């Protein structure tokens, strides 16, 4: 198995954290190989933020360090969806945060899974900052890419004790979308 994942949104939406958690979950707790490259503009809020992940069970399949054609994508904002949609395979699986994404390209065969991650986070958790974990939960719950327990261990490790429970709560909320 080899997957290319593209996660993109505006700075401040926690894009890189999704990448970090996925990376730790896959590499340390799922015996998978991962390459992740992060890119962002200098401004913390508002600019493009993007994480490219290549995940494979075979080390030899980790080659080019960036996404060439994503199998799976998360778009947390309309601006980055427009900018990076060409990097997603025409039959790719795409997760969108409906809070900020209103229009989807019509000429592709994406399998689109959508929910208002930000609104859900605000309404159910009381903190929009964990919308990213809701999205990650949605992705994990529907793709079964990685065991959810591995992701929770990764959350504990990456976000630290103070914010761990909140993030895991958001992650579980995402896991159950559509269930």
């Amino acid at each position, binding site marked *: 198995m080899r997957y290319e994942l593209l996660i993109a949104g505006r700075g401040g939406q926690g894009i890189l954290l999704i990448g970090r958690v996925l990376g730790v979950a896959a*590499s340390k707790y799922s015996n998978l190989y991962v390459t992740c490259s992060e890119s962002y503009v200098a401004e913390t809020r508002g600019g493009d933020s993007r994480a490219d992940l290549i995940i494979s069970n075979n080390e030899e399949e980790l080659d080019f360090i960036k996404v060439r054609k994503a199998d799976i994508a998360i778009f947390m904002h309309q601006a980055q969806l427009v900018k990076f949609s060409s990097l997603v395979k025409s039959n790719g699986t795409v997760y969108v945060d409906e809070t900020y994404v209103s229009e989807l390209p019509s000429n592709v065969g994406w399998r689109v899974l959508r929910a208002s991650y930000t609104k859900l986070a605000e309404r159910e958790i009381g903190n929009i900052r964990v919308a990213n974990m809701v999205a990650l939960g949605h992705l994990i719950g529907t793709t079964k890419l990685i065991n959810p327990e591995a992701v929770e261990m990764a959350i504990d490790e990456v976000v630290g004790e103070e914010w761990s429970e909140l993030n895991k709560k958001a992650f579980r909320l995402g896991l159950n979308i559509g269930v």
Partner: protein
Amino acid sequence: MRLEYLTGNHAIAEAAIIAGLKFYAGYPITPSTEIFEYLASKLPTKGGVVLQFEDEIASINAVIGASWAGAKAMTATSGPGFSLMVEALSLAIMTETPLVLAYVMRAGPSTGIATKAGQYDVMQVRWAAHGNYELVVYAPWSVQECLDLTIKAFNVSEMLRVPVILLSDATLAHIWERVVIREPPEVSIVNRKKPKVPRDKYKPYEPEEDLVPPMACFGEGYRVLVESLTHDERGYYKATNEVQRRLVWRLVNKVLKNKHLISDSATYLVDDADYVLIAYGSTARSAYALIRELRSKGIKVGLYRPKLLWPLDEEMLINSTIKAKKVFVVENNVGVYVREISRVLRNKEVISIPIIDIEVPTPDEIFEVMKEWI
């Protein structure tokens, strides 16, 4: 053995600790700074010292001093900082001082683009310091290799009493990958040879059969003399042809004659390859992706990847390209290392594929050039 998820810079720092680092001196410079910060936080808990100096010149000279005090010592920098360090690099070569310098390349010339990648400095790293010498330079292509080759860099620097450079770049510095970390005794750690004779018989620059002199350090009672001037085996300045020739040739030959101990390269499907791509560092990842793609289409392409960039293992290069009709050298610069390849493969068609890309050249960009030739 343990698994970690680290960036290239973190892996270099982690490896340095495993190798026995006890002193780091540095000056902050993008994209190398995380090495410094990681060590500043971790090394003091392992009995080491991390100091920030007023510039890169002071940093590397302090590293040389610390090495003579008996510590494994390193610094890290990028192009502008390395330019400042080269005089002292020459001192380290002349005084046979073990040290490791992590050089994280960024886009130049001058200040260029501090946060973005390139491989512009592969020739500078080899030739910038004055005098004649052989310099050991390793180039990793993954976070795992940032770790493995940094440990190797320390081992070689201690084994041969030479400065060793770990040449990374802004791309590798900041990608995250899974790393397998092995600590001693799972990984072997080399320490410099100590004198086997008493003080009155000890000469700090008298080599053994491997051309490497045992190293006494300050405070051990040997009355060592670190000498930047041309010196004899005692460290005494001598301005004669005889001493100059003996010293310079030994400094060169102790690297060349021990090449079998330091050589490192990787090949992928070169045995039946009509075309061999040669690439190093992060760019080799792109070449490798292209080769996998072309192979799936039945095109016989292979990869030769020197991990030891300097001195180039000429025999390995020749053997890995022996059947190739054409050789392509892919670099994220204007095409510079290709000159070294062409020098060795002078009877082959060697084609330069220089691609300036501030991230990393893509497989498509490489193929765009390559397709005209196959």
